[in-house]
């Protein structure tokens, strides 16, 4: 055993040695240790440097509230994790931990210079100093700050571990496995309620499990012995699930809770065996009982942050749970009775201990116990300073004045190697407030306690403000039975003996002889904010706690101010002379403790991140070397390079082939909505800008759909299959939204219409064949069909059979070429496609992808909704007045086209752009200006589509330009990083203006 491992306990197995390293040096601990207890057993207190001043900092607590002892785990491996609290990580063989936030090393840290210049780093320093000159921010200030600050290193490789999500439902969820949680779970489970008990530690029992003190007795047994028996009883209950190493992350409304279970974090790396690391439980509980406990408060005095200054109850836990003494010469500094339990425990193990108490007296059993043992107590005293750079060596104390606002008498110096501090207890109300619960301020011991109003959850034990053992046990029993409507049984007849606190005194900021500006009394240890920072913020006019918090960064570190929020509030209240209860608290937001990204995303990583939709022809595209692009969730062929062609070369070849002979496109991804019902025509009249009533059966029509604000929403061709039957196509990306929008109107605005909508996007596959030879290919595919312009004109549809398979052929065109779209049931898509390729072989039919499709339609000036439009373009802006019916009384968006704003003549309007140099290709998204010298530069529009057209042998572009309709022939400029490109506004139809090729 090491010098500091002075006690054997049942929680740490001292026969099982575990070795680990800290900052490269090898140490030993035992199975059951945390990293913090193992470090303390080796006499190591100094763990890191503080965030702003780089002051040496040590372990301060034993749980999730730890602000100082934050480590990088397994540095330089792909499993590395920053910002891990040494107090929470269970020790395992081979664990590698290192300190953070120090450079070049923990013992010699160059950022420590900040400590010396700290008078010049007050609250808001960064905001104030680094504002000017502006140009300095990016190149000088920011890199400097980033180099000297920061919290650990992010892993550079993808996380190799597996994370999981699981849903769970229960009657009762009990949060916290301390004494109140155990009592609650037992009552619930014994009454046939499906109960889950979660506890973030690896063993149940909270702080009572190591409360081995004669002053705390339940039913004649020491409280720890009693609880031990209760736990073994509990484990026999059938309808109770106990989840240890599981911490509550969030408590949402309607009793929906997230809890993170650590499954393999405590195992050595070689024993994880690819098991799941963490599981996020998504729990819906009928009733929730919160027994989250309380966190001990520090005391705020000058230099209260040195290594070796530890919360008093944590000192007790290290001693009685882990068998480790945090020091051999202890002083306890307290304002309450609970720290006396630590003193008695230390004394009983033969360790030197003295007590400094700001109260004048206390006559409780535990204080008498300490006095009887002969422990020296300095009443009515406060610590005014501490000494020792990397570890505390001594303290100075003084007497308090009558009202506690000042110090009197002489300074008295006492040597020590550990100072245990206790400023009372703060109920963990985070869960309660996360669920929407409110708080009341309890004046007598200055705590916020839950206002009990919810029918769905209650708080029990110390998180409810019950601090004494007797009230914890009895109130929990009473409240739980009432909450769960249970009359019999429970713990009605239990007898509890405990020490009761008779004297209470609290001073948020302890007085000192030296002026405040020369002290460093830390409130937020992790973010290095001090009492004087808060007072400065108040002097500078900040009043709201939320503003003070942000200005001083108090409570904004990864511990979310678990130790600091109350003191910040208290000091604000004292300084401003208001009652603390009137200030309110800051908002506690989930997660209660930081969650890994892995736990949040679970299995939704890599190929499970999102759904991938493939057409039935996908395999053919893969085999034919297609490059794919994502369009929504769809994988669409982008281009089909031959040999070593790049995108440009392939697209030039494909585009030329489609116009010279024949091209084929997989158009299966277009959204398809089957519309039926006796009012289908009327419905289309209302949702499209053009008229539909007179469309003959077997005919197709292009439609433009607006939002109610008049802006273009979607477009596509709709075919009339029968009297009351249409097939609408939508853009690939817009399909789901269009269906939702149509359903919305049908159900809410026009429920009287007899119309039924069915999404059939996935039901059909579409091969679109275009080009002058397309008719010949169709003739080969359907030898019995007449494809003459008279029998099968443009914008019409016919049924046909191929290989006994029924198909629909639409003669429609998005390229301006003679073009046919053949639709078959999806399962026949690939065979249809292969038939088309075979039939087209003699015409060198060329498969083309989305890029060529975009180019071909741009040559014709056809828009792509979402590329040439952005939700601010009306059909008038797009120069598509021809599609807006003047006769129809109403359609979605019609009224908005006559608003004064949509009728402005200087709106951005669709134009064509030609570069003066025909080989210069504009960048899509590039800005357009009319005057190069004007300051500030006035941007009058931007390029929306741009290509080199192989069919025109020049660069073409579509753009939206303010007042562009009237600019035909005008010279404009596209300024780029290193040159200005001269362009001329043109018609946006570049190719075959007479539309001859459609009937070629």
């Amino acid at each position: 055993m090491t010098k500091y491992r002075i006690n054997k306990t049942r929680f740490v197995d001292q026969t099982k040695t575990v070795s680990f390293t800290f900052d490269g040096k090898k140490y030993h601990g035992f199975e059951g240790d945390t990293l913090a207890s193992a470090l303390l057993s080796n006499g190591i207190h100094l763990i890191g440097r503080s965030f702003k001043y780089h002051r040496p900092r040590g372990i301060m607590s034993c749980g999730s509230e730890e602000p100082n002892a934050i480590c990088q785990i397994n540095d330089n491996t792909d499993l590395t994790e920053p910002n891990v609290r040494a107090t929470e990580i269970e020790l395992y063989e081979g664990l590698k931990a290192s300190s953070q936030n120090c450079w070049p090393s923990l013992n010699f840290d160059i950022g420590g210079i900040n400590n010396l210049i700290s008078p010049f780093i007050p609250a808001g320093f960064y905001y104030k100093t680094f504002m000017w000159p502006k140009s300095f921010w990016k190149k000088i200030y920011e890199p400097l700050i980033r180099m000297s600050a920061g919290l650990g290193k992010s892993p550079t490789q993808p996380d190799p571990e597996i994370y999981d999500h699981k849903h769970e439902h229960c009657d009762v969820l009990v949060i916290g496995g301390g004494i109140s949680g155990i009592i609650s779970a037992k009552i619930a489970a014994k009454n046939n309620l499906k109960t889950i008990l979660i506890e973030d530690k690896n063993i149940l029992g909270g702080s009572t499990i190591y409360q081995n003190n004669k002053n705390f007795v339940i039913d004649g047994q020491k409280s720890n012995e009693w609880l031990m028996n209760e736990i073994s009883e509990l484990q026999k209950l059938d309808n109770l699930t106990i989840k240890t190493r599981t911490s509550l992350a969030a408590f949402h409304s309607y009793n929906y809770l997230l809890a993170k279970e650590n499954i393999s974090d405590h195992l050595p790396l070689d024993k994880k065996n690819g098991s799941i690391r963490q599981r996020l439980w998504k729990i819906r509980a009928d009733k929730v009982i919160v027994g989250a406990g309380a966190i001990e408060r520090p005391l705020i005095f000058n230099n209260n942050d040195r290594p070796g200054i530890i919360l008093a109850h944590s000192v007790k836990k290290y001693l009685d749970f882990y068998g480790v003494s945090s020091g051999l010469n202890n002083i306890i500094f307290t304002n309450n009775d609970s720290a006396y339990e630590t003193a008695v425990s230390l004394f009983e193990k033969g360790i030197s201990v003295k007590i400094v108490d700001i109260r004048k007296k206390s006559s409780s059993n535990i204080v008498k116990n300490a006095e009887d043992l002969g422990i020296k107590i300095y009443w009515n005293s406060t610590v005014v300073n501490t000494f020792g750079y990397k570890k505390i060596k001594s303290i100075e104390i003084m007497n308090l004045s009558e009202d506690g606002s000042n110090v009197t008498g002489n300074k008295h110096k006492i040597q020590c190697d550990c100072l245990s501090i206790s400023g009372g207890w703060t109920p963990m109300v985070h869960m309660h407030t996360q669920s929407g619960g409110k708080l009341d301020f309890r004046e007598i011991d200055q705590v916020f306690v839950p206002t009990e109003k919810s029918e769905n959850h209650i708080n029990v034990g110390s998180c409810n403000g019950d601090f004494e053992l007797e009230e914890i046990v009895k109130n929990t029993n009473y409240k739980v039975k009432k909450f769960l409507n249970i009359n019999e049984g429970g713990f009605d007849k239990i007898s509890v003996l405990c020490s009761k606190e008779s004297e209470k005194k609290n001073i948020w900021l302890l007085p000192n002889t030296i002026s405040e500006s020369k002290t460093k009394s830390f409130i937020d240890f992790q973010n290095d904010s001090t009492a004087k920072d808060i007072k400065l913020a108040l002097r500078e006019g900040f009043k709201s706690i939320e503003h003070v918090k942000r200005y001083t960064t108090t409570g904004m570190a990864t511990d979310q101010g678990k130790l600091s929020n109350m003191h910040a509030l208290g000091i604000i209240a004292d300084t401003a002379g208001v009652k603390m209860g009137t200030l309110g608290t800051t908002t506690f937001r989930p997660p209660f403790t930081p969650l890994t990204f892995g736990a949040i995303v679970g299995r939704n990583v890599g190929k499970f991140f999102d759904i991938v939709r493939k057409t039935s022809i996908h395999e053919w595209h893969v085999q034919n070397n297609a490059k794919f692009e994502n369009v929504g969730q769809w994988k669409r062929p982008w281009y089909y390079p031959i040999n070593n062609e790049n995108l440009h070369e392939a697209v030039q070849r494909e585009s030329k082939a489609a116009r010279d002979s024949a091209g084929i496109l997989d158009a299966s991804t277009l959204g398809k909505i089957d519309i039926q019902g006796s009012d289908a025509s009327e419905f289309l009249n209302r949702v499209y800008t053009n008229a539909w009533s007179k469309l003959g059966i077997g005919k197709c029509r292009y439609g433009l759909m607006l939002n109610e604000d008049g802006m273009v929403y979607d477009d596509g061709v709709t075919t009339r299959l029968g009297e009351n039957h249409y097939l609408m196509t939508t853009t690939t990306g817009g399909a789901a939204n269009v269906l939702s929008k149509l359903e919305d109107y049908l159900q809410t605005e026009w429920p009287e219409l007899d119309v039924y909508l069915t999404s059939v996007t996935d039901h059909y596959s579409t091969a679109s064949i275009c080009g002058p030879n397309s008719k010949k290919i169709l003739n080969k595919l359907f030898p019995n069909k007449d494809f003459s312009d008279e029998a099968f004109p443009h914008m019409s549809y016919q049924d046909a059979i191929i290989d006994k398979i029924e198909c629909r052929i639409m003669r429609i065109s998005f390229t301006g070429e003679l073009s046919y779209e053949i639709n078959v049931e999806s399962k026949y898509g690939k065979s249809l496609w292969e038939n088309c390729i075979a039939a087209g072989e003699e015409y060198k039919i060329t498969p083309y992808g989305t890029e060529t499709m975009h180019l071909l339609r741009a040559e014709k000036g056809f828009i792509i909704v979402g590329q040439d439009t952005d939700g601010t373009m009306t059909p008038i802006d797009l120069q598509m007045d021809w599609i807006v019916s003047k006769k129809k009384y109403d359609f979605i968006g019609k009224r908005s086209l006559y608003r004064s704003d949509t009728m402005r003549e200087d709106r951005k309007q669709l134009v064509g752009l030609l570069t003066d140099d025909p080989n210069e290709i504009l960048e899509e998204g590039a800005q357009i200006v009319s005057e190069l010298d004007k300051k500030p530069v006035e941007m009058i529009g931007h390029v929306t589509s741009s290509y080199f057209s192989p069919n025109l042998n020049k660069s073409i572009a579509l753009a939206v330009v303010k007042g562009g309709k009237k600019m035909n022939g005008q010279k404009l400029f596209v300024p780029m990083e290193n040159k200005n490109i001269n362009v001329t506004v043109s018609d946006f139809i570049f190719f075959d203006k007479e539309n001859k090729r459609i009937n070629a």
Partner: protein
Amino acid sequence: MFVINCPYCGERDQSEFSCGGEAHIVRPKQPTELSDDEWAEYLFMRKNIKGVQFERWNHAHGCRKWFNMVRDTSNDKIHAVYKMGEKPPVI
């Protein structure tokens, strides 16, 4: 996350639903008769009440039906759900 009682399907998790904003804003029957201001009132102006609010919800990942819901935005208590076309309850 709420539990929403779809009037067609029963209680389901909120993740199956999408919210469609304020309820009982009827699309004008004769939009062309409206002034710019009147049309803008219909088109753009929405309340954002702290307290009891009437909302449209859609069971998007379920029966795909739209319905109305009365929710207190200050505590997320759902007071009522009712079908489109039904009279709003008095809360």
